[in-house]
């Protein structure tokens, strides 16, 4: 067994090394940022792309999926055509007047973005890094989270775009902010990192929508750091793009919650190549509440991996994780959820659930819900199920005159709705349900 034998660098890894050497000088940021990049790249270089040998990547082999490393995307030139395309690719969500921030190939394009509501300030990541603001640099590196993760380290090393959003203390922003990340048509790699800092007592809804105009494969590796100060409240929804089937997308979310803060995040994965959704959430202050929910609807050779690490550092916090997966074709679903209760994090209340339905004999679901508990006065539990559609239920619906595909779609919709119900905003929920409906109707046709 070649357990500790260091495998040779893959072609993609070699290219990444060359790309870093080439791009290093032109990547944004002052020297502290450069040092951060170098350290992160060293982490990547020693670990290589994650393989199944890495426990946190047990069911997703990025090294195999990333045969080749695509070149870094260069800064785009915004023009009228792009604007038009954007409206087509990401039409406005019905009944929801969001304030949009547009990222093209990871780069923040102010010209295409909307004015921000009062109390919200925005700057491009490159500007923030160029200023070398120490607090921003520290916040971006989200200390203590996702350390040693080679994919996240790669993002840190290459981060070229993204936005920094600040919500002033006490501001309860009614208008949702929407980050629309679009990729242009060339085949390339995008490394964006964004930062959301929500001041004490402030409220914000943030929607992240990724869309793609590319027909070719792309490689996205994005990260969002969310810091919610005491008594702040954030509602967050992420809809990754349906990419070309040869694409890879690593989407990291690192959230830190202050005392009595609340964070509710939802992810809808609709397949398209390999998607790795990794979320780290840490409770730094007492009496905070965090909920991570999501739904994955997958077909063909889609691979969607949801990996969560929830760290209860402070006492009296509540965490909820709730995920639904529907698998058709030869799709693979992965759910790994780890709840860590640190010594002293007493009165922690944690509940995690992952439910999956397999529609095809060639689909695979892997569940790994973990608990790691070092405090005694806690209530933590997890449940995981894998099953198929209930034949009796399908029969019941059919007996009432519904054709089989309709009956199945109805049941699947109800199954997934239990997850989308956790999104607070009604228009967003309707939007998510419509996307799931589209997926289901395509299934009916196939």
């Amino acid at each position: 067994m070649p357990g500790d034998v260091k495998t040779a660098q893959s072609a993609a890894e070699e290219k990444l090394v060359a790309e870093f050497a080439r791009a290093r000088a032109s990547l944004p940021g002052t020297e502290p940022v450069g040092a951060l990049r170098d350290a992160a790249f060293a982490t990547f270089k020693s670990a290589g792309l994650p393989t199944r040998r890495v426990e946190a990547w047990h069911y997703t082999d990025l090294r195999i999926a990333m045969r080749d490393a695509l070149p870094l995307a260069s800064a785009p030139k915004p023009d009228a055509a792009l604007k038009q395309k954007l409206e087509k690719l990401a039409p406005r969500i019905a009944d929801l007047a969001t304030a949009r921030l547009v990222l093209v190939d990871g780069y923040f394009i102010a010209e295409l973005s909307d004015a921000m509501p009062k109390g919200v300030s925005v700057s491009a990541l490159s500007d923030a890094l160029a200023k070398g603001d120490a607090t921003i640099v520290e916040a971006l590196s989200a200390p203590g989270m996702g350390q040693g993760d080679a994919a996240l380290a790669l993002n840190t090393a290459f981060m070229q775009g993204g936005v920094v959003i600040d919500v002033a203390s006490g501001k309860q922003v009614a208008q949702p902010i929407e980050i629309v990340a679009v990729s242009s048509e060339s085949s390339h790699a995008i490394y964006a990192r964004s930062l959301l800092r929500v001041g004490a007592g402030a409220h914000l809804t943030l929607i992240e929508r990724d869309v793609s105009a590319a027909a070719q494969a792309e490689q996205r590796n994005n990260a969002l750091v969310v810091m919610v100060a005491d008594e702040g409240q954030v509602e967050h929804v992420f809809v990754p793009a349906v990419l070309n089937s040869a694409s890879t997308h690593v989407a990291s979310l690192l959230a830190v919650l202050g005392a009595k803060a609340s964070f509710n995040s939802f992810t809808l994965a609709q397949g398209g190549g390999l998607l790795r959704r990794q979320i780290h959430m840490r409770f730094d202050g007492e009496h905070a509440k965090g909920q991570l929910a999501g739904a994955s609807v997958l077909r063909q050779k889609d691979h969607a991996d949801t990996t969560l690490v929830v760290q209860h550092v402070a006492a009296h916090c509540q965490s909820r994780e709730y995920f639904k997966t529907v698998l058709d074709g030869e799709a693979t679903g992965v759910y790994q959820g780890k709840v860590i209760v640190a010594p002293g994090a007493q009165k922690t209340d944690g509940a995690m659930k992952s439910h999956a339905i397999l529609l095809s004999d060639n689909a695979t679901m892997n569940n790994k819900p973990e608990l790691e508990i070092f405090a005694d006065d806690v209530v933590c539990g997890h449940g995981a199920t894998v099953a198929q559609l209930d034949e009796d239920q399908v029969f019941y619906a059919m007996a009432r005159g519904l054709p089989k595909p309709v009956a199945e779609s109805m049941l699947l919709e109800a199954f997934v709705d239990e997850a989308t119900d956790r999104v607070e905003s009604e228009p967003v929920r309707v939007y998510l349900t419509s996307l799931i409906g589209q997926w289901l109707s395509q299934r009916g046709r196939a």
Partner: protein
Amino acid sequence: MAAVQETVDRVKSVDVDAYKYGFVSDIESEKAPKGLNEDIVRFISAKKNEPAWLTEWRLEAYRLWLTMPEPDWARVDYPKINYQDLYYYSAPKSTPGPKNLDEVDPELLRVYEKLGIPLREQEILAGVQERKVAVDAVFDSVSVATTFKAELAKAGVIFCPISEAVHTHPELVKKYLGSVVPTSDNYYATLNSAVFSDGSFVYIPPGVRCPMELSTYFRINEQNTGQFERTLIIADKGSYVSYLEGCTAPKRDENQLHAAVVELITHDDAEIKYSTVQNWYPGDADGKGGIYNFVTKRGDCRGARSKISWTQVETGSAITWKYPSCILRGDESRGEFYSIAISNGRQQVDSGTKMIHLGKNTTSRIISKGISAGHSNNTYRGQVLAQKRATNARNFTNCDSLLIGETCGAHTIPYIEAKNASAVFEHEATTSKISEDQLFYCMQRGLSAEEATALIVNGFVRDVLQQLPMEFAVEAQKLISISLEGSVG
């Protein structure tokens, strides 16, 4: 509440240092020199007059072992083992091949007496005429005496040390040895294959229901001796056997390595019930000196409608690394795993099971109860897998952990992998401390905090205790109360 009080008193009286079974008996033993190389492997094989194929089998395993890395994925932490600083063979020095008890070293018998093994006069367990237990006692590495042989022979059951089976039933040993846990399986199993000393061999012929419960008491006795048991149980078509394994070990200053391998095979309609009570020395209050228990246990439900059931009560050992598993190969076969793992002091437990569903309509059930106290860490690590062709695989898993005290840890790491749409897997896990409400309720009825805790813990593990054969259930209950000493109240 006399019984509870008795438990509490007992718990108080037994300090971690005052391990009940911590004594050393002075029996001369014959040892191979320290360390491991091909010569030692040959020496062990020669000592047992093994046939050439077995010697070669051992050597092959040894060569493979040299190329393997030591696994480090488990949530356990211990100083690196120097495998060259261990003895790999130690046989009690007594007259060659003692065939009856009179020939056995009386010192050895006294050891058993202290352990409470009914060996000498108890041909029929006191007071229980119908229930009989056959004991294949393992003292350090060699099975010294086997009782009830005649009665078993009448039923056609073969129950003997594996070293003996190699000579008397070579065709069975050759056919089944390593067929469930291959020599290349994992680091410790491979090591075991190279140097295994002895263990039990059981063969139940077709259609036979074994007339009594079979039992082996393991005991690690010699200082610095690695204990490498090898157990092989074969239940032929339509047969049934219940096998009990109980362990106690005397106190030691240095950590002792135990790397056993247990292989179970069930053919069509056969059933094996394998129960373990493990109470090895857990180390002193600082976690020094306990047993390292790195065991590979696996059952292969080879035939249709066969069943393998593992029940374990783990209270001892400094480190437990143990995953009794079932390969559900036969159609409609069934695997079960019932476990109580209790850790206290500085104990580290990383245990669980694997249910590998391969055949059609296979079912499995996992009930795991972990209790951690003191500074211990208790991890459940389990895998449930349905392969593509495992139509209608069913699994139910329930892992509950109970935490007593602020400095212990309880962890759950299940791997649930379904590659077949008709698989139905359910998994649930909870971690909690004894609820204030429950305690309050009991105390309101006049129980002290300690009594109430004892009562609740007993209720917590009852699901599993019920799966144990009678003889073990009593012993297990005692062990549980001793293991939680100092942590209650």
